[in-house]
């Protein structure tokens, strides 16, 4: 695999979650609390939404709405077509959850999201303490269209990227324990008929060397054949910034180096886009 990436857009601070939607790439300018758009036909960069409270990831729902992980305000939101933004249920057993980082939505409209702790506190009065755990949580719609919030993992310490397999049979999760001896893994959890998660298979483990632990996976997307693209690595340690590609069956197929530390990725017709910690949107042709 030899993808040649070029920068096509920039933002201040970190560029994070992104999505291909209505012929545009939408990507999160986290530190600007904006969602920006890139039009590949014209090359134009625009503002899709402002005042997004550190929204760090985006996902389409089966209802056609755009959903976001609003990390700064500790909630999942729905960005409505009329410009309004609806907050979804944010209390787990009465307590407000942590800072959602990434989200993915399955065909049953269940919203799965990583809920790590964050070094950046939510703005305003610090009334709500953080949860003792950092888990993958799920918003599940009930028959009356209300939502229930559920804890789905008990083996994660710092979940980052989440991705549902195309047939909703597996949940991919990256868990990046920040301690020097901690594990940084890509896991594949089977989803049972009742919606619960089974024991995961570890698809990849990130190592460490004399320079330090290798940076684990921070973002994922799916290709047309169900293959999984994973953004990981940095210039600080290990083999460097990379995209890892896993087959739908979970085998590591190939890797591709990147010019800078990646955050997340998405597939668009004929292209792959990658966001970076340095605030750039990169593009490479897949043709």
């Amino acid at each position, binding site marked *: 695999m030899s993808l040649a990436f070029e920068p096509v857009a920039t933002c201040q601070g970190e560029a994070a979650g992104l999505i291909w939607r209505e012929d545009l790439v939408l990507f999160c300018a986290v530190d600007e609390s904006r969602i920006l758009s890139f039009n590949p036909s014209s090359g134009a960069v625009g503002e899709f939404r402002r*005042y997004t409270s550190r929204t760090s990831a985006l996902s389409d729902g089966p209802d056609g709405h755009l959903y976001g992980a609003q990390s*700064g*305000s500790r*909630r999942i939101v729905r960005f409505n077509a009329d410009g309004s*933004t609806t907050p979804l249920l944010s209390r787990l057993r009465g307590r407000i959850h942590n800072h959602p980082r990434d989200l993915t939505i399955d065909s049953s409209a269940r919203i799965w999201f990583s809920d790590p702790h964050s070094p950046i506190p*939510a703005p305003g009065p610090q*009334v709500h303490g953080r949860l003792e755990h950092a888990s993958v949580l799920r918003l599940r719609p009930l028959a009356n269209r209300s939502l229930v919030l559920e804890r789905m993992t008990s083996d994660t310490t710092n979940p980052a990227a989440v991705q549902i397999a195309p047939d909703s049979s597996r949940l991919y999760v990256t868990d990046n324990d920040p301690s020097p001896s901690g594990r940084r893994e890509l896991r594949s959890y089977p989803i049972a008929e009742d919606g619960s998660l089974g024991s995961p298979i570890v698809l990849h483990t990130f190592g460490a060397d004399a320079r330090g632990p290798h940076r684990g996976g921070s973002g994922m997307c799916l290709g047309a054949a169900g293959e999984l693209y994973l953004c990981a690595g940095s210039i600080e340690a290990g083999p460097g910034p990379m995209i890892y590609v896993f087959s739908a069956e979970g085998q590591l197929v190939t890797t591709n180096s990147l010019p800078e530390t990646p955050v997340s990725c998405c597939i668009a017709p004929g292209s792959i886009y990658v966001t970076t910690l340095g605030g750039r949107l990169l593009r490479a042709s897949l043709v």
Partner: protein
Amino acid sequence: MVGTDRATSGLARIVTSDSNLEMVAHGLTFGEGPVWNARERAFYWVDIIGDTIWRWIPGVGQQVVMRPSGKANGMTLDGQGRLVVAGWGSRSVWRIEPDGLVRTLASEYRGVRINTPNDIVVRSDGVTYWTDPSGALFIPGMEGPDVQRYLDNHPVFRLDPDGTVTEAIADVSYPNGLCFSPDQSLLYVNDTWRAHIRAFKVAPAGELSGGEVFYSLVGDEPGVADGMKVDRDGNVYVTGPGGIQVVDPAGALLGRILVPGHTTNMAFGDDDWRTLYITTYECVYRLRLGIPGIPVGPPVVP
């Protein structure tokens, strides 16, 4: 006697040997919106995150007035004794009519949805001012049904009796508490992010001018510029580090009243208006003072 510090001789007329902090209510998640209703001889306040307006009557106890409240925040009484509310989560200014119905007074400015009204005052002729930061759009647990911010600034708005909404102040970074001087010639507005109070001259028609910095808060303990009230002598009481900072009409600190927890607001009350009711995140306290506050609402006819 309640604790004080940085006290000058002027504080001795306010905090006396009878000034003992007494707990009125506890178990709140975010107390705010205090106001004394002289007709009912009752104290009202809100629990923002608890989404409730409460009332407490001395010797009787506390009861729920409204739940849910749309995450109500600052409250006051107008000249007819109606409860006028800064609708923090509902993104509106509203009041409770004598028949109990809720009437929305304002929710838009020039066709655009406002931010999140934080605190509110009504002048004796009915002209209303409220601070409109965007806090309820981003603070966890305080949100309403729409958390999208549409305005690019945090104004102070004026609402005239005919329903006209005007941007009265445009250049405050995070306006929060506000109150009139005793003669209503000045409107004090504090700024949480800049930790100071500004003083604006109020014209008869309601326009504001000036806006010089009147006082900058002191101390590095927990607490921010939030609620604010004035006493009969024109002393300004503002929440801040330590609890409540009392400032004379010239802008000099008279001293700090130390309050447990994180103080959010206060209101004068009781028949002689010499009791200061204080809200914190978790509690309501009351404190007898030597100087009465400015009455709120219609005068009580014996």
